[in-house]
């Protein structure tokens, strides 16, 4: 048939207006394309498809090998600390604990989170030592960690990972990464190059300042009498919708005792914790420090000025300890951004990065065979 404007809307139907066949029976037959036109159209299609694929891979940082991604960050942890099957890439050595948190209701004026209403919620936790080696010897100067998971009655969770340093030595993920690179063991000496460490400090005055504050807080004798700091600021939202920036600290009820120094026991910190918790439940006050306008919320290397309001929101009690091999804590990612409604991240760049990197570490170790941990089940029972 001859295609024309007038019959374009015609349909091949029978008398009842139904289509006669399954396929469109009356097709226009466009004029054949010239070879040049055909080539241009095919090339156009190719370019469009490549652009789509390129945009997708660009978003995935395929073309930016210098960009810090969670995978590249964890690769660096592995270069420094090694790969130990089934273990966290940092804070690899630890033990699980259980207990509960008794909220006194004082936190409710800061945050509507259910955890701050008066009452008790169960807690699973993990004490750890910094570093990638799950069998390292305990040392007073090693960073101590405490990860906690609060299970709220409405099914929400609050997870936090705290350390015993009053400030964090690095202001952003790049600084943390560069320090990791600087502390990477030299392939010949198997020791970090002191010159690289010095160069890092020289170019990061905020780290040098933070280390001075850290040095002024001598580590206590054990996990049980350590304070633990949340370090990053968080934004709390109360029932009226009012926002407040806070940082939190766990202040030990167990009295401070200075560390005695070297010990014969390779695991003296963990063994001390086990002995202590088996003697009596250990307790900490959860204290919220409330920011004033202008206090830095995006830089964990800086302390907030003295005299900021402190709100004791309740007491954490840890009354049992177990080896990672039997503890549910082993399989928990203490992601600091698992937060209940009423708690939100601040603009601190470390928070999202921690969430991303913890998740990457968790994903890697989740699929690995779980090797025995340093603190075995029998060690906890003896």
């Amino acid at each position, binding site marked *: 048939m001859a295609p024309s404007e007038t019959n374009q809307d015609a349909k091949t139907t029978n008398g009842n207006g139904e289509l006669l066949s399954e*396929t469109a029976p009356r097709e226009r037959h466009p004029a054949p394309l010239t070879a040049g036109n055909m080539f241009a159209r095919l090339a156009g299609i190719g370019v469009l498809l490549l652009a789509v694929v390129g945009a997708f891979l660009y978003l995935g940082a395929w073309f930016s090998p210098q960009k810090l991604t969670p995978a590249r960050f964890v690769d660096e942890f592995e270069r420094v600390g090694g790969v130990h099957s089934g273990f966290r890439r940092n804070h690899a050595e630890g033990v699980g604990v259980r207990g509960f948190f008794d909220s006194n209701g004082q936190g409710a004026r800061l945050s509507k989170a259910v955890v701050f209403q008066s009452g008790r919620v169960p807690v699973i936790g993990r004490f750890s030592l910094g570093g990638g080696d799950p069998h390292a010897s305990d040392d007073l100067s090693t960073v101590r960690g405490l990860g906690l998971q609060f299970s709220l009655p409405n099914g929400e969770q609050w997870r936090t990972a705290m350390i015993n340093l009053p400030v964090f030595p690095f202001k952003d993920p790049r600084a943390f990464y560069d320090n990791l690179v600087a502390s990477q063991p030299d392939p010949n000496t198997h020791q970090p190059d002191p010159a690289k460490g010095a160069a890092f400090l020289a170019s990061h005055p905020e780290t040098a300042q933070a280390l001075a504050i850290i040095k002024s807080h001598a580590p206590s004798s054990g996990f049980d009498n350590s304070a633990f700091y949340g370090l990053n600021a968080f934004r709390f939202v109360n029932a009226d919708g009012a926002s407040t920036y806070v940082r939190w600290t766990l202040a030990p009820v167990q009295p401070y005792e200075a560390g005695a120094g070297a010990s014969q026991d390779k695991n003296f910190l963990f063994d001390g914790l086990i002995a202590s918790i088996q003697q009596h439940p250990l307790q900490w006050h959860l204290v919220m420090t409330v920011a004033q306008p202008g206090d830095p919320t995006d830089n964990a290397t800086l302390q907030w000025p003295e005299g900021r309001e402190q709100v004791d929101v309740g007491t954490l009690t840890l009354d049992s300890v177990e080896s990672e091999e039997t503890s549910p804590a082993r399989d928990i990612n203490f992601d600091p951004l698992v937060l209940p409604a009423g708690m939100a991240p601040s603009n601190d760049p470390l928070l999202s990065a921690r969430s991303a990197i913890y998740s990457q570490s968790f*994903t890697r170790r989740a699929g690995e065979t779980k090797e025995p941990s340093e603190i075995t089940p029998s060690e906890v029972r003896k």
Partner: protein
Amino acid sequence: MSAKTTTNRQQFNGSMRFLHWLMAGLVLAMLGIGIAMVASLGDYHLLASIHRPLGILILILVVIRFVNRSLSSLPPFPATMPQQERFAAHASEVLLYTLLLVQPLVGWGMLSAARYPIVLFGSLHLFPILPHSVMLYAVLRRTHTFLAYLLFLAFVAHFGAVLFHTLIVRDGMLSRMVPWRARAR
């Protein structure tokens, strides 16, 4: 409604076209968010907070879309399409529907197996759909990445086939799905 438009059976009906373009936008956004979030430190949390509820929305929409499609009559393939091409088009549709259904379920399942809270908005969260097992999580996490790349490739193939029909064969393939009402041919 005029007789002309009601008898145009060359085009997918309005609800099918609406769901197609809505999901096209959401799924493309989801693929971009997914690949960007796993490569990001600073935007990871924000993107992950969008990724979870968006995935559940896509899961709901794909079920609605499948039911809607089952209840609708479909326009015929253009006469220019040979039998093998029709088979390929049908197979790619089955693949796309399957991926759009399975991918959110794998995402939900992997968070369930890791016992992450599956937060949608505020305190609203989903129940776990699989038992607690980090090994299962690890397998599903890898599966989620694999299916994401497969879904992206299926989208590229779909896009390429439509471009080929529109620019080279010029058989009006695209007019079957354009958001506006195409004139019957």
